[in-house]
Every structure is written in C-alpha cells, then in structure tokens.
C-alpha cells in the first residue's frame, strides 16, 4: 500500500515545533507516496495518546504506516537522515525517483 501515516508527538507549540512540523511536511512530499497523513499530537493536551503509544521523549515521530512501525526521536537537523531512519528513502519503497 502506497500510503503513509505519521504521528508527531510534541510538548507544547513553539517556533521549534513549527519548524519540525514544516520539515515533516517536506519529508512527506519527498517520500513520493500516494496518500500522506501527518497527525500532530501535543502531549500536554493528549497525554493519554503518549501513554497509549509508549512515548517518553519529544519530539518523536512514529511511522504508523506502512508497517513495520518505525520511530525517530529528536529535533530534525538532517532531513536525509530522518528519511533514512523512518525508512522513507525511495529504495525502501522500490519506487525509484523517476
């Protein structure tokens, strides 16, 4: 299935978290998938979601789909590295960039 579902757990909203969100939106574009969804969860507002997903650290990105799940924690300085950690580089999807 060529769809992508990411959860981003943040603690409050700040210029820093906005930058993280913007970077992830760019990332989902880079991933070249058909359906893309990024859900931002502020753990201060929804702590029960952090409990349910077993999140300790913020920010944390969870790749919910495609399976298997993958997780990355920390501020995003290097988008290419994050793509690799989340398994979203084209080679992981056998969808070569044209």
């Amino acid at each position, binding site marked *: 299935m060529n769809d992508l579902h990411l959860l981003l757990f943040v603690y409050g909203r700040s210029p820093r978290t906005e930058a993280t969100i913007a970077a992830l939106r760019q990332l989902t574009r880079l991933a070249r998938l058909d359906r893309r969804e990024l859900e931002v969860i502020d753990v201060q507002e929804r*702590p029960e979601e952090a*409990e349910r997903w077993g999140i300790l*650290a913020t920010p944390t990105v969870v790749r919910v789909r495609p399976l298997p799940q993958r997780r*990355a924690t*920390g501020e995003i300085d290097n988008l290419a590295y994050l793509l690799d*950690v989340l398994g979203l580089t084209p080679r992981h999807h056998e969808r070569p960039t044209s």
Partner: protein
Amino acid sequence: MNAQPPEKDAVATPAPVRKLPTGIEGFDAIAEGGLPEGRVTLVAGSAGSAKTVFACQFLVCGIRDRDEPGVFVTFEDPADAIRRNMLSFGWDIAAYENAQRWAFVDASPRPEQMSTVVGAFDLGALLARIEHAVRRIDARRVSIDSVNALFARFREHHLLRAELHRIASHLRSLGVTTLITAERTQEYGEVSRYGVEEFVATTL
C-alpha cells in the same frame, strides 16, 4: 545615612520538614520517620536489594494506612510483571487500580517502541504522562523505578539529567512526595552509577 543592620528576629524559622512513612520500619527509623513530604528523594541500593519492592511498598503504605493514592512509574519491569510479583506480598495492585488508588505509567522498554535518536530531545511526553496520572487519581505519592533503567535507554545522559531535574521540580510543584530508586555499583562507593543524578533529589 547608615544602612540598618538586618534584624535577626525578622528571619522566620522554617517549618521542620515533615516525613511520610514508607511502611518499612527499618528504613523509617533510619530516615527519622520516612521520606520528606512534598519532596523528591533518591534512594540508592545495590543490585538485588529489592528496590522495586521498596518502591511498591511506599505506595501500598500510602494507600492502606493513609488513603493516599500513588503513581508508579516503571522504566524496567512491565506493569503486568509488577502486578504479578507483588501478589506474593499480599498486595493486589489491580484492585488498587480499579479503585483509582494506584496508577501505572508503564515506561518499560518494548522492542516495537524502540526509537532512533536523530537530534536533541526532551522528556516532555514522560512528564505529561506522569502529570496526567497524578491528576487523574489525585495522587499524593509517586515512585519512579529505576533511574538506571532510564539511563540505559539513551546515550544522552547530560540531557536526561537536565530532564530529571525538570521532572523533579514539576513533581515538587504538584506537592507529591516522590521516591526515585537507583542502583549503585558498590556498596559504599559512588551513590549511583551515573554519578550526578543524585543531585536531582532533595535528599534524606
């Protein structure tokens, strides 16, 4: 004009720190009544010194003897294992949970939840989970077991220490009495394995 010397009797005598019993007679005797109320205390013991049992007993004592609900934060044993293991002491934690007297924050490691660190992070999610649990059952006591298991999860120890400070000060502001367990490597050596985190706590 001469500055007035400060009047000695203007300084208020601070109220003595009240102690909360842990339910372990020997410990409470040594610690002159128990843990300081409303503070965070780090208790270090060597491996196999029943730190988890101690952390549980602190909450059980609060629930049984003083009607004080408690939150158990576990970085090591899954909540299920703790429920099962503590039954042998006659502590039915599940029953306490159902009665809203006990809440787990289960931060035990699970393979499917492993995350790769790609940059600077904080423990905001952990803080939010603890605070949520404390508010949910109106907890008066918190046990955190153990700090070593948390440090084993991340390489960024300087960052963890700063975050533990933040969590400790948050817990103090909530007014709960907190016990943090730590393992020490030698019986009379450094207080705990990471050398610095004992400063997180206002001590015994």
